């Protein structure tokens, strides 16, 4: 009876919603069908006829229904249909076959999503600011924003100043002073840049097809990157893509489609790559392009063997370190650490606010910077600057340890009780093994840093309580871990802190970037928790989100994967080998995998998500060759902007930004390997990402695009679970602790929620204090996994000994000559010891993460950032990437400020604007990686690039043979004034072939017919 009433009510609901909302009336006109809802035994039922926008209904069961939703019995139906919907019950009913949906998948999906619209159409978001201005919220990779909208146009985006109803911040008492952050959010430059990338002229606005690509005829794969595009309809685009997915499976077998995405995405828990994309790619089956551990590299492949932390990818726990640092530390050693440039990760300028406290000399915390570049953090926080040559600071660290040993300046008791293998390490440092004592004088040869300075630092450090801050997070990440000696560097960093008593008051890891005293018990999932992916293997979903937000699980069936660094070889040569990035244990990284996997199909099709790889991987002309290979029969790129690899696709699917679709997220909420990433923030801020404007052009949300493709494959109800994007957003809200604090309605209106700061008495303990005090681990992180404790659960580290290991047991078990059990200094294979190569290309080029853009995000796109001279420089109407070089080196080459120069080696050539500076020692130059623009001035792969893709020049060789580790943050190059020529021939430039030079700035225009990505239609 109840079921029959609900069904009758549903019919009324359709009519009332249509009466109230014009949008719904339009929706009803989209399809004509008869939908049946009934019990499986036909005892109760009702049909709904949708015809030209009108809804008619009747009780009973018809045999001419187009689609049919059937329940095992009426009681179950009543339970499942009665709002609020219990998703767990619904999913269990599906899994137990007590609920079925039959008929055309697309029609069924339309019916289900239409039904859900009756719930959400009345939701209103934003605040009326007067004058026709609506204020909503959103989230960028660089912090949360207020978005002011008027007449369907974004007026402005600002940081969020908290109001009187928001909770107050925390206060740390230290050394008789009080430290309290301001009641507001900050933005990173790329966050404040967001409006300009929404309205970028480089937006992909319409589905596009390469003009000389015919799925039923000539594919002309060699023309990728050269030919123009013509506009096609969404129907045609989706037909082609779905058709190609089926074709790849049919012709080649499962896994013939590879999926490749960048390491980041526009922010949001539903529309994220780890969410909607993973659900889609698992649903259709694919070969994943398996990532190397990006910015972690040396920590994952190296440091993890000394101290565990595999579930933090080899980086340490960070809790409580802001308070401990301010209260107890005497000095912070920033080592290849530039948080002012990298904002931690997603941390906006929140750490800047705290590091500014260090400028107060009353606090008495000294600062030291070790970096070949006098980086932004060194500029901000005065302190001694050590400028070792790139890749060599491992030697400097060893010399520091050498001084400590010689002069007894380390914690011998701690070393005896909390570490193993010290004698072996000591013997190596003293030269007992190789006859070379690792003295400050020894390191000077390698690093160029005066021995006397290293000795002075070692002595000062040995007498003080010191926070070691490697990388932008202060506990690793970025910095020197991405170059050829990155594994050695991360390892030696852990050895240094192990000698000084990690966990003692004032002795820890950090630079005030992580470790704020926030409430970590309040649950809101991070992006790595997998959103709507249903992916229990490839995301952190099984930890907690899966229980809180039950959803249909997804599972990829092909077991093979392509190691990302070697992807071009996988396609071009048909084989590649790699090592996995899996954080579950230390040992997972040892499991070599090969492509193709036995019995699997070779990849014939690539589903590419965005266009970042050309400037974020290494020696990336390899990708140009890959894209032009006939081995890739089809390439689709789903992208917001027409840039980078998008210009190499056969079909471009235009995605919209997160300002044009609904989403939900927490600021710097990473989850997974970045557990409690909110520690970087002064306040936890959770945001409803309201659609501020309609999608630009014909662009669509990723969710919509995937669902449409799924419709062609009968998978849309599996993919979407029959609900709309905003329903997923609500589902995530309900899955979190949010409903206990704020109603959905209030949340939509206000747009954000600030989690109150933790009470002082309940603040998370200081990291490693438990270890130092021989207690059970008490910081709020669920790692390592229980079986990884050697003696007793929560006692000791993840290492075999449970202690800090100078001599790593895991590296005794896994023999890698390049990673001996005790870390040793082996000079880079691309540096001053590289012989002929170094003679030819005598400049060491650093390519760290960029300051103003976030990887490729925010750069190019005709964005505001182009107007910042330290980002790009306008010369002759073109915005060139900046290459910084030592002033003397520039003078010696006749190069002046903002001259156009050719940065080149045997891998390629990039035209940049030169910035001579004293912020770099001689022989070192510096240009950020991750230009969004790849702009070959002629034949792609054979001409100079003026987009600024410095990663065309960096080595693809991994740090060691048995790791899948990026090593390219340092490369040997030469820089010469640019003669305006567009073809690339290194010998020609050296003078072997003389041609009339063109004056700088009067570059040859790219030939029109060659212009990549040129839109014809």
């Amino acid at each position, binding site marked *: 009876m109840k079921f029959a009433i609900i069904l009758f009510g549903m019919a009324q609901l359709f009519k009332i919603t249509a009466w109230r909302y014009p949008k719904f009336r339009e929706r009803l006109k989209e399809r004509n069908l008869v939908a049946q809802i009934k019990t499986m035994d036909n005892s109760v039922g009702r049909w709904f006829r949708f015809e030209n926008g009108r809804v008619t209904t009747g009780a009973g069961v018809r045999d001419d229904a187009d689609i049919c939703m059937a329940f095992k019995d009426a009681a179950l139906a009543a339970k499942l249909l009665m709002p609020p919907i219990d998703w767990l019950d619904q999913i269990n009913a599906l899994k137990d076959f007590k609920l079925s949906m039959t008929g055309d998948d697309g029609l069924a999906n339309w019916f289900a999503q239409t039904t859900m619209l009756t719930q959400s159409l009345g939701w209103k978001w934003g605040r009326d600011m007067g004058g026709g201005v609506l204020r909503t919220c959103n989230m960028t990779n660089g912090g949360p924003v207020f978005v002011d909208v008027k007449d369907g146009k974004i*007026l*402005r*985006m*600002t*940081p969020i*100043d908290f109001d009187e109803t928001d909770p107050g911040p925390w206060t740390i008492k230290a050394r008789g002073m009080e430290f309290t952050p*301001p009641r507001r959010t*900050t*933005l990173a*430059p790329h966050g*404040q*840049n967001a*409006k*300009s990338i929404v*309205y970028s002229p480089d937006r992909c606005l319409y589905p596009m097809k390469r003009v000389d690509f015919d799925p039923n005829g000539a594919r002309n794969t060699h023309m990728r990157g050269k030919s123009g595009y013509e506009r096609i309809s969404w129907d045609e685009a989706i037909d082609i893509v779905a058709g190609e997915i089926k074709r790849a499976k049919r012709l080649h077998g499962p896994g013939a489609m590879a999926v490749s995405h960048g390491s980041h995405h526009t922010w949001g828990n539903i529309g994220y790559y780890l969410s909607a994309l993973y659900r889609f790619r698992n649903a259709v089956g694919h070969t994943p392009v398996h990532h190397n551990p990006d910015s972690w590299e040396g920590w994952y492949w190296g440091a993890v063997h000394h101290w565990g932390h595999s579930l933090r990818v080899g980086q340490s726990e960070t809790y409580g370190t802001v308070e401990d640092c301010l209260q107890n530390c005497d000095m912070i050693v920033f080592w290849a650490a530039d948080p*002012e440039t990298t904002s931690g990760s997603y941390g*906006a*300028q*929140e750490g*800047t*606010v705290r590091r*500014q406290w260090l*400028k107060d000399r009353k606090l008495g915390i000294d600062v030291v910077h070790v970096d070949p570049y*006098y980086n*932004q953090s060194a*500029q*901000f926080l*005065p302190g*001694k*600057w*050590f*400028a070792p040559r790139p890749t060599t600071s491992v030697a400097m660290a060893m010399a520091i340890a050498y001084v400590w040993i010689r002069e007894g300046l380390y914690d011998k008791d701690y070393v005896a009780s909390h570490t193993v293998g010290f004698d072996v390490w000591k013997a190596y440092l003293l030269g007992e093994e190789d006859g070379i004592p690792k003295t400050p*004088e020894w390191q000077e040869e390698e690093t160029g840093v*005066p*021995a*006397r*300075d290293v*000795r*002075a*630092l070692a*002595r*000062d450090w040995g007498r003080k309580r010191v926070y070691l801050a490697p990388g932008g997070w202060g506990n690793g990440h970025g910095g020197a871990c991405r170059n050829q000696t990155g594994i050695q560097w991360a390892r030696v960093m852990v050895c240094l802190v192990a000698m000084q008593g990690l966990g003692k008051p004032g002795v820890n890891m950090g630079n005030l970037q992580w470790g704020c005293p926030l409430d970590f018990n309040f649950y809101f999932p991070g992006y790595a928790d997998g959103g709507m992916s249903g992916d229990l293997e490839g995301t952190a979903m099984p930890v907690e989100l899966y229980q809180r937000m039950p959803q249909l699980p997804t599972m990829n069936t092909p077991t093979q994967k392509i190691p990302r660094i070697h992807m071009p070889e996988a396609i071009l040569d048909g084989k590649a080998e790699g090592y996995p990035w899996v954080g579950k244990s230390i040992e997972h990284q040892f499991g070599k995998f090969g492509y193709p996997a036995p019995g699997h199909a070779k990849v014939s099709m690539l589903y590419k998500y965005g266009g970042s790889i050309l400037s974020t991987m290494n020696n990336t002309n390899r990708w140009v060759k890959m894209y032009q290979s006939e081995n890739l029969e089809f390439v689709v790129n789903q992208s917001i902007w027409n840039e980078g690899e998008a210009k190499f696709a056969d079909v471009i699917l235009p995605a919209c930004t997160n300002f044009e679709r609904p989403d939900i997220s927490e600021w710097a909420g990473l989850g997974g390997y970045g557990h409690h990433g909110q520690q970087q923030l002064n306040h936890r801020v959770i945001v409803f990402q309201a659609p501020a404007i309609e999608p630009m052009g014909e662009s669509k949300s990723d969710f919509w695009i995937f669902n449409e493709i799924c419709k062609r494959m009968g998978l849309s109800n599996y993919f979407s679970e029959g609900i709309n994007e905003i329903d997923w957003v609500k589902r995530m809200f309900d899955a979190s602790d949010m409903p206990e604090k704020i109603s959905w309605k209030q949340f939509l209106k206000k747009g954000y929620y600030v989690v109150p700061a933790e009470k002082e008495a309940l603040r998370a303990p200081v990291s490693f204090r438990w270890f130092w005090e021989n207690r059970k681990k008490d910081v709020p992180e669920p790692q390592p996994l229980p079986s990884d404790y050697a003696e007793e659960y929560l006692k000791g580290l993840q290492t075999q000994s449970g202690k800090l290991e100078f001599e790593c047991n895991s590296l005794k078990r896994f023999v890698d000559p390049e990673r001996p059990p005790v870390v040793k200094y082996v000079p880079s294979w691309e540096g001053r010891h590289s012989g002929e190569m170094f003679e030819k290309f005598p400049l060491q080029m650093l390519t760290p993460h960029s300051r*103003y853009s976030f990887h490729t995000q925010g750069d190019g796109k*005709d964005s*505001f*950032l*182009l*107007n*910042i001279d*330290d980002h790009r420089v*306008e010369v002759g109407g073109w915005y060139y990437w900046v290459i910084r070089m*030592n*002033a003397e080196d520039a003078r010696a080459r006749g190069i002046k400020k903002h001259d156009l120069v050719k940065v080149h080696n045997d891998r390629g050539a990039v035209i940049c604007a030169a910035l001579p*500076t*004293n*912020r*770099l*020692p*001689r022989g070192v130059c510096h240009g950020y990686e991750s230009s969004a623009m790849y702009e070959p001035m002629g034949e792609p792969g054979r001409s100079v690039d003026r987009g600024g893709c410095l990663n065309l020049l960096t080595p693809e060789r991994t740090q060691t043979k048995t790791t899948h580790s990026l090593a390219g943050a340092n490369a040997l190059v030469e820089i010469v004034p640019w003669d305006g020529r567009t073809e690339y021939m290194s010998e020609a430039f050296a003078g072997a072939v003389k041609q009339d030079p063109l004056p700088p700035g009067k570059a040859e225009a790219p030939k029109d017919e060659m212009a990549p990505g040129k839109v014809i239609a």
Partner: protein
Amino acid sequence: MKKWNMVIDVAACTNCNLCTLATMDEYIGNDWSPYAAPMPKHGHKWIRIQQKERGSVPFIDMAYVPAMCNHCDDAPCVQKAENGAVTQREDGIVLIDPDKAKGQKHLVDACPYGHIWWNEELQTPQAWPFDAHLIDQGWKQTRGAQSCPTAAMKVYCLEDAEIQRMVADDGLEVLNPEFGTRPRIWYRNLWRYTTAFIGGSVSAEAGGLVDCVEGAKVTLTKDSAKQAEAVTDIYGDFKFDRLPEDSGAYTVEIEAQGHPKKTVEATLGESVYLGEIRL
């Protein structure tokens, strides 16, 4: 009458450019006439961050100075504008009316600071209008100040006497006071941009090893007159700062226990690092 002023702390500016980006966000694509016509997407720098690199590897520092329309009390642009196109409001804000100023390209040259920009498309001069349209809607700060993470940029609405007291108490300065235009944009720690330093690193050899000399007394003299005294730190480093650029010859005397006194001559143009000084 309270008037608007801005105070910028050069020591706290990190060159993050959030002020310049927030200003672009506010004015590019938005027409706030008569306060301001839209800013062109490229070519204008209504807020421009000037920078100064001092010293050489590895003894160096950087200073960043956000500069913008100074909203001068004796603004040449107000005087040179025809048709009343540029006015200073009672609250101190100088505004260029985009319509009335149309065609008045000479105003670009009227500003000695170079903070008036020519909008080619609209044929009108433009400058940063202190976000007056927002101030008039009740905003208490400008977009740049709101976005500044270090509060290097702060906005004050004060009586002239009050700001003058602040200027005196805190040693605030304006850029190029010789222009005589009486700016309302003030700077703290501007010496980091306008002055120079002499620095060096003192070392000595003992027992076959060269070490840094801590605690050496270093005296700076000019024309036989003592200018300043410093003590070397653990790296043997000393730094005499806030010296006028191009101030010529100096003498640096170093005294350290157990070593004969050492004298080094220095000529100051821009900042100079004397390098390692071995006793």
